[in-house]
């Protein structure tokens, strides 16, 4: 399943140029099959048994002299499974909303599928070296997707994204190597059960190196400035993937690596996590208030919302960690949808300046309604997905770090401000003659993407347990490690 999108990408790449319009069909079919597999995994996953399931293990490099082995080891637990589901869902959505890409479509869809493979790989590999390989593999399609199909200062943004992330992950690689050689294994399951006492380097430094890679990716203040640039200049589908899935690699990494493998250091660092989480929330939210570009607004709101993941993780309890994991999923779905809607507005109006847009509800009722739904979900309205996650984060963290949690709650208030104000200015207000010709989302691919996302958001909002059950199974061993 992990490599299936890669096969699809290869097929598209080999497609003769005169059939290049068909690459979108192949891409859609491929990612739809992957989504089907993901749903199948959800059904087949045994929640009562927990732990890692669907294990595929093959030795890859065995080096007797150095007494370690690298292996091809893929499996999912509840947490990984949720992330796989998110990846599969958003990949399909991203491909659907790119239906009309006419610039070099073959490459475009091939890169999107490569991206999907690398993301699935990150969330399923349990060999540290494979984890890192997939983690880095993701940069290749991202660089091309932003710099070729983006808008604005796309090359600058792509470089910034690439360099920033590599900077973080190079430190992470050092951390991975030190940790693995100290423990004598690259097997992430064994690592997360080992008690590492004497490492080559002091463990707090190792923790910092690993964490830094994740902090850049999350992104944590003050390492977040690549995000608004990359999100804003990326094409719609890539913004969806970037905000929806790529940021989640960081939260996943924190749970899977930082907390599981170095629990004592994580406990020491948790107060900083809470503090930076609160800063992320409030700082991101206040800056979001004054953004004038729709996409930049959604991008900065992501910075704010990822702060909740940090706050949830800092709680180190089962509720807080589950909340953080749920927030990762719901933020992926909600912000993904926001980017889809903003992209649709941009496709039609060719501007994202909030000041220029007005009264769009008259021309695009469906898009406006979906925007309102996504916006309300983003600001944490009960019955929508965001609420369930934020409540769990707050409940989990309040007892441990009261002040950061309170600041986080204030962040919800500000998010209501920027979301509602944006909807008021863009969709309501005076009908402008300039936008009379704009049409609504009428094609099947647009409507499928919108309806699917709305359905997922509502489903999780009303029955959070459909997802929380899986997350709890995955998070429980991690919570036990850090308690």
């Amino acid at each position, binding site marked *: 399943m992990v490599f299936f999108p890669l096969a699809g990408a290869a097929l598209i790449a080999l497609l003769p140029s005169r059939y290049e319009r068909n690459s979108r069909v192949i891409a859609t079919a491929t990612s739809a099959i992957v989504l089907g597999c993901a749903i199948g995994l959800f059904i087949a996953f045994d929640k009562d048994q927990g732990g890692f399931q669907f294990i595929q293990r093959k030795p890859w490099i065995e080096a007797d002299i150095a007494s370690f082995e690298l292996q091809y080891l893929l499996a999912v637990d509840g947490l990984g499974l949720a992330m796989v589901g998110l990846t599969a869902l958003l990949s399909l959505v991203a491909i659907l909303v790119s239906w009309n890409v006419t610039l070099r479509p073959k490459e475009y869809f091939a890169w999107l599928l490569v991206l999907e493979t690398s993301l699935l790989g990150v969330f399923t590999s349990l060999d540290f070296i494979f984890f890192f390989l997939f983690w880095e593999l993701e940069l290749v399609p991202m660089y091309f997707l932003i710099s070729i199909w983006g808008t604005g200062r796309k090359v600058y943004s792509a470089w910034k994204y690439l360099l*920033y992330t590599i900077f973080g992950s190079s430190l992470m690689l050092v951390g991975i190597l030190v940790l693995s050689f100290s423990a004598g294994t690259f097997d992430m399951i064994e690592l997360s059960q080992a008690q590492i006492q004497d490492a080559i380097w002091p463990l707090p430094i190792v923790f910092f190196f690993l964490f830094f890679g994740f902090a850049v990716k999350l992104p944590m203040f003050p390492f*977040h*400035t690549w995000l608004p640039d990359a999100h804003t200049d990326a094409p719609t589908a890539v913004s969806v993937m970037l905000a929806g899935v790529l940021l989640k690699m960081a939260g996943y990494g924190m749970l899977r690596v930082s907390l599981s493998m170095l629990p004592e250091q994580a406990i020491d660092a948790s107060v900083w996590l809470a503090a930076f989480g609160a800063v992320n929330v409030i*700082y991101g939210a*206040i800056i979001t208030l*004054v953004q004038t570009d729709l996409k930049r607004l959604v991008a900065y709101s992501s910075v704010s919302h990822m702060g909740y993941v940090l706050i949830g993780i800092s709680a180190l309890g089962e509720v807080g960690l589950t909340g953080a994991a749920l927030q990762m999923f719901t933020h992926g779905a909600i912000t993904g949808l926001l980017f889809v809607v903003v992209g649709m507005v941009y496709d039609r109006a060719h501007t994202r300046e909030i000041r220029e847009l007005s009264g769009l509800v008259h021309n695009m009722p469906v898009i406006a309604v979906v925007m309102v739904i996504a916006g309300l979900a983003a600001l944490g309205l009960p019955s929508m997905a965001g609420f369930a996650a934020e409540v769990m984060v707050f409940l989990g963290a309040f007892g441990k770090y009261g002040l950061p949690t309170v600041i986080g709650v204030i962040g919800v208030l500000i998010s209501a401000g920027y979301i509602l104000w944006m909807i008021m200015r863009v969709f309501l207000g005076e009908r402008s003659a300039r936008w009379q010709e704009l049409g609504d989302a009428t094609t099947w691919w647009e409507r499928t993407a919108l309806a699917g996302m709305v359905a997922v958001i509502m489903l999780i909002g009303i029955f959070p347990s459909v997802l929380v059950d899986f997350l709890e199974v995955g998070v429980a061993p991690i919570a036990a490690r850090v308690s």
Partner: protein
Amino acid sequence: MAINTVAAIGGITAIFAATIAIVVTDIKRVVAYSTISQLGYMIFALGVGGYVAAIFHLFNHAFFKALLFLGSGSVNHATGTFDMRRMGGLARYMPVTFTTFVIASLSLGGIFPLSGFWSKDEIILDAWNEKRILAYVGLVAAFMTSLYIGRVVFMTFTGEYKGGEPSSHATEEAASHGGHSRQPHESPVAMLLPMVILAGASIFTGFANISDGVTHFLNNSLPAELAEEAHHFDFNLGIAVVSTGLGVSGFVVAWAIYGARLLSADRLRQAFGPVHTLVENKYYMDHLYEDLILRRLILGNVARGLAFFDRYVVDGAVNGLAMATRAGSSGMRYVQSGQVQLYGAAIFVGVIFIALGIMLVNPP
């Protein structure tokens, strides 16, 4: 102490909102500010320990205030406007709306024996038992209440009809339907029926606590120590007479200004000059919140400042690092010139330095 603060906040809210209700000209705004005022009244009641009275007033208020809003809607349906200056004389055209509206107004004004009288009286009595001065606050608010609602009644329903909204939707519709052009008309039964029912409730719900019905009902829900404290139904003739008297005089003053025009509203407005301007602008609260705090302070300074900080300091550091790297690298580029002589000279200098270093550490 804390509880007196609650009473003070409630009392201030009640009077503060009542003054605004006296000057605004939009009928729905009067009713809305009246709601703020009455809710202040209830908080005031909680502050003086009148838990039962507060809830009882909330209960009664629901009926007559709903009726007032429906009445405003009915009037709007007929005239196409919410501006009372464009109404007048509607009693003739809309007898049912008029009657029910008057019942609700009298109830709100605390006129015996309508529901508002009973609960308002209880609140003032509780205040009287708690602290005399607080009772006066309640009485002042009661007078203002009947003044503003009396103003609505006389401006809307008495005098000459001022023609409603000049080219409104409602009148156009009326014109196209019946042809009886600009004449306001009574609303249909579907609108009147709820008003009649609510009017009945506004009259009778006040009797619910005469035999301590509400008190018993609520005592089960109150914490034990408060339940004992909650005063039983008590009737003080003096208070009742004074509060009803003030209520009536409020209506009389309203009648004198807006009904009989014994006093000119314009003259009064001029007499109060700056005070009127202040109140008419709702004490500039909206300006304070929207312009000063929201636009100037939060958006203008805090948010813009942070956005600036983000772009030029946080991101500036990142870009600065990139530029420094590039500058450093292009500086280093000149080292690799490819000239053997230069490399030779560098090796020579390096060897001397190493030799010196060794000699310093290990003197011969």
